[in-house]
C-alpha cells in the first residue's frame, strides 16, 4: 500500500486559512461546509501562553474506522493507497462513517445526501501535483508526499524534526503529521 502523508509545520503556520479557501475553490465545496479547517490551540497560564496553529482535515488513516464500518463499501481506499474516498453511487447516507471518525472529519455535503470528505486532492496527486491546500500555502508550511520513499520531503521532515499526530490513541494510525 502506498502511504501518502501530509506534514504541516506548526512553527511556520500563521493560521491564515488560505488552505481552507484553496480547498473550497479547487473542490467546489458549497458555502458553510468545509473539508479542512484551522484550529488555534492555546496552552499555559497567562501571561505564559503558547499558541499553535493546526490546519486539519481527514487524516487518511492507515486503519480507517470509517472504511471498516461502512456497510456498503462506499467508503474505500483509493488505488491501494491510504487515501480514503467515498463512492457516491454506493453511499446510502446512513452516516455510520461520520459516527466512526474520531476526528469528526467527514461531512454530509451533497444536497442529494451522500457523504463527502477531503480526498487529499487525489485528482491532482494522480498528475504528480500537491493537494490544493499544500500548493497554496503562502508560508510553505505544508508538505505532501509518500512515506514509502525514504528520500521524499515528508520522510525527511519526519526523520529530522519532532512531530506528532492527533490523538494517536484512537488506533486509527493517522497520516497527517504536525511538526512541533
Amino acid at each position, binding site marked *: 500500500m502506498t502511504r501518502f502523508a501530509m506534514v504541516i509545520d506548526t512553527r511556520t503556520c500563521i493560521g491564515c486559512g488560505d488552505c481552507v479557501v484553496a480547498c473550497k475553490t479547487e473542490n467546489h465545496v458549497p458555502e458553510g461546509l468545509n473539508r479542512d479547517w484551522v484550529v488555534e490551540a492555546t496552552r499555559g497560564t497567562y501571561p505564559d501562553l503558547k499558541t499553535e496553529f493546526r490546519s486539519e482535515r481527514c487524516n487518511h488513516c492507515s486503519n480507517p474506522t470509517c472504511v471498516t464500518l461502512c456497510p456498503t463499501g462506499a467508503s474505500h481506499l483509493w488505488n491501494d493507497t491510504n487515501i480514503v474516498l467515498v463512492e457516491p453511487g454506493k453511499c446510502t447516507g446512513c452516516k455510520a462513517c461520520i*459516527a466512526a471518525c474520531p476526528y469528526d472529519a467527514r461531512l454530509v455535503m451533497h444536497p442529494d445526501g451522500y457523504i463527502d470528505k477531503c480526498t487529499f486532492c487525489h485528482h491532482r496527486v494522480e498528475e504528480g501535483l500537491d493537494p490544493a491546500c499544500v500548493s497554496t500555502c503562502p508560508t510553505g508550511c505544508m508538505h505532501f508526499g509518500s512515506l514509502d520513499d525514504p528520500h521524499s520531503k515528508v520522510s525527511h521532515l519526519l526523520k529530522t524534526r519532532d512531530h506528532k499526530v492527533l490523538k494517536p490513541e484512537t488506533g486509527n494510525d493517522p497520516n497527517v503529521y504536525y511538526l512541533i
Partner: protein
Amino acid sequence: MTEELLVTARDNALIDPGLHIWTWEVAMYLFMGGLTAGIMFFAALMTVRDKEHVAPFAATRLALLAPIALSLGMTTLFLDLEHKMFVYRFYLSFQITSPMSWGAWILIVVYPISVLQILSTFRSGYPFFASFFDKLAIGRFALDWCERNRTAIAYAVIPFAVALGIYTGILLSAFGARPFWNSGVLGLLFLVSGMSTAAALVVLIARQKSEKELFTGLDLVLILAEIALVALSLISLASGSGQHIDALQIILGGSYTIEFWVLFVGIGLLIPAILEILEISGINKSLAMLAPVLVLFGGYALRQVVLDAGQESTWTHYETQYNPELLERLHEENP
C-alpha cells in the same frame, strides 16, 4: 489551561457544533428491532416448552406482531437515510467488519423465518384468516408443512431472534470513536431490554390470567437482569480510558443525566419492577396494567438516551467562533 478554537468557518451539517447525525428514527428502529427479537424469541420459547395451554396468546398469536414491528422499525430507519434511492446498496455487498452490513442481512433472513413461524401456529392462532389459506392447495400445503415442523422452526427462530436483538446493541458499541457506546455489554443490554419489552407487550395484550402471570414473572427477571447490565455498563465506562470516563459524565451531571436516571432507570426500570413485585406478591394489583406500559416506554427511552449521549461523547471537541447566522444575514442584505 488548554483551549482549542476553530478559527476558520466550519459549520458542517450534522457535525457542528456537536454530532447530531441520528435522531428518533434510529432510536425507534433500535426499539422495534429489539421488540421484534423478543416477540420471536418468546413465541418460539412457548412452542419449544409446549406452553400453549398456559400462554395461548404468546404460543399461537404473538408471532404475527414480529414482522409488523420490524417493518415499522425499518420504515423509520429508511426515513433516516440521506441517500434513500441507494438503499439497495446494502444488498449488493457484505462487509464483514461492519455490524450495519451484518444487520442488513440479518433483517433479510429474519423476515422469511418469521413468516414460517407465523404459519406454524396460524390455524390455532388465527382460524378465521387461516380458513382463506385452506381454500387454496398451496396455502393448505404451506400450513400443513409449517405445523408439522413447528418445533424445528421454533428452534431455528431462537438464534436469529437473539442475533437480531444483540446486533442492535453491537451496531452502536462497534463505534470506537463514540466512547459512550463503546462497551461490550451494550449488545447484551439491548437484547435483554428487547426481550423485556416483548414480555410487557404480552402482559398488555394477553387475556388469560395464567399467561399474564407467567409473563409478568419473566419480565421481572428480565428487568432485574437489565438493572445488573446497566450497572456493568457504567462500571465498564468508569474503569475505561479518559474518553470513557469523560463520556460517563454525560449521564453523571451532564446533559442527559435526567433523561437517563429519571426516564430510563426510574420510570422505565425501577417503578415497573416495584409494581410487578407488588403484583406477583399479591399486595397490590390495581396498577398491574401500568407496569408493561412503563417497560415499553423505558425500552424506547434506553435507545433514545444511549443514542443521544453517544453522539455527544467524542475524542475531539473544538470551540468555534463561527456564527452561521452571519452568513444568513449577509444573504439577506445582499440577495
